[in-house]
């Protein structure tokens, strides 16, 4: 399984706009971490966004998380004000992992 994270927008949109997508390949993870990622990705994929965009948020960030697993690609596009709790947990895991690697 391969998970790609693209972060856009925010107060620092000018900086975020220039940053490439970041990739986490489960094949490079140890067994525990790979299982964590799989569980979080599975939960995020089956949970719809918690809200539809109101158009009233300013400086919020938006995220595109692409999950490639066994030849199937799932694209999740959510933002700070629309994300499900499950999407938020996957996002948090990805950011913590990407920071420490």
């Amino acid at each position, binding site marked *: 399984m391969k998970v790609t994270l693209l972060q856009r927008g925010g107060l*620092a*949109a*000018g900086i975020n706009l220039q940053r490439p997508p970041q990739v986490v390949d489960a094949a490079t993870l140890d067994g525990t971490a790979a299982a964590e990622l799989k569980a979080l990705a599975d939960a995020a994929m089956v949970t719809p966004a918690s809200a539809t965009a109101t158009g009233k948020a300013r400086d919020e*960030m938006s995220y595109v998380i692409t999950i490639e697993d066994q030849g199937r690609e799932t694209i999740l596009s959510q933002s700070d004000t629309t994300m499900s709790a499950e999407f938020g947990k996957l996002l948090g895991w990805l950011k913590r992992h990407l*920071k420490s690697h």
Partner: protein
Amino acid sequence: MRASYCRCINCITPPHVLKKLLDNSDTRVRDAALRTLLATSRLRGERSVRSLFASAAAASSHGRRTISDCSNSTFLAAATLARSEDGPASGDESVNRAFEGLGDTRAFYSEVFDRDSLDGQGMRLNAYVHYGSEYNNAFWDGSEMVFGDGDGVLFTDFTKSIDVIAHELTHGVTEFTAGLQYHNQSGALNESMSDVFGSLVKQWVGKQTAAQADWLIGTDIFTPAIGADALRSLKEPGKAYNNPTLGRDPQPDHMSKYVNLPDNDVGDNGGVHINSGIPNKAFYLAAIGIGGFAWEAPGHIWYAALSASTASTEFQEFADTTYLKAGQLYGTHSTEQQAVLSAWKEVGIRISGVRTLAGTATRMRQAAMTNGNGHDEDSSDVARQIEQLSRQLAVLTKEVAGLKSKSKAH
């Protein structure tokens, strides 16, 4: 009864009518009266009006603050109360910084523009700190502010810069005034309002003149290691940062460099945080041209233009409005109006219907001076404002009569 009330408006001086309304038991009536009173800038400095304001002050919640702690969750509903308006200081510096930043911004809008909180009616100010994981951002969710801790690599805590806090709060002010749509040019203007007033709050707190200010946004939210000056520079858009990790500041400082980006999330809604560099630079140039404290004449001109703008206002219309407002507030051909004219010209926007041939401005100013220092325009300004106030009072009186007859029916 309603008829006699309406006739009455013509023979009572406005402050007397307003005083009556301010004593009304209905808070909606008091707030409306207060707003009307403060809408007339000429009356603002008068002692009689000030004392009316003080007596009615208790009517509003005056932007009472509540800071909540997200404990690194993205789910705001689960956040816990960390500090309230009358509660003790927190042991958490992020909480206290957010609390103070909200207070400074609230004080700025109240003291500089006589605006009671974001909506002008004492709206409560709610903020959340420690949002999410490694969150490099702060945002306005449409009614509340949210601050991240930063990832510690690029960014640190977003409550550390007062201009960032004021930037987010100003999104609320813009929403309650012009309501500028968050796309393309109107969106870039929306962003520019937040940068302009965000910077003004920082300058006001530091009591800095336009010449002394650094005109940078977010100098304190970068980690020391990253070596960036700021998120944005109003003085030099495009030069806030330039390094291998962050890239180069993409803000244009002139219409000829306007950046066309897709109007979607990935394209920053048509580059709202990018093209804001153009109106940002115009404000900086106007402030330097006028001189002194930028929250005085320059801030008042921009605030009046924001209040007179609509959801679809673009750069040209906004520039024209600042020119118009500068004339109304400080006089046609005043140095303030000339500074506004040349500021926009320098970023590639010519004010509609104004000839900008070399020397014209000076000749016009000289002509105005020989015609009696523009006193005629000043007195007609006052007359127009009084007329406007009377109209507002008439509307208010009708509203009050309506409320009274309603409460009678109950």
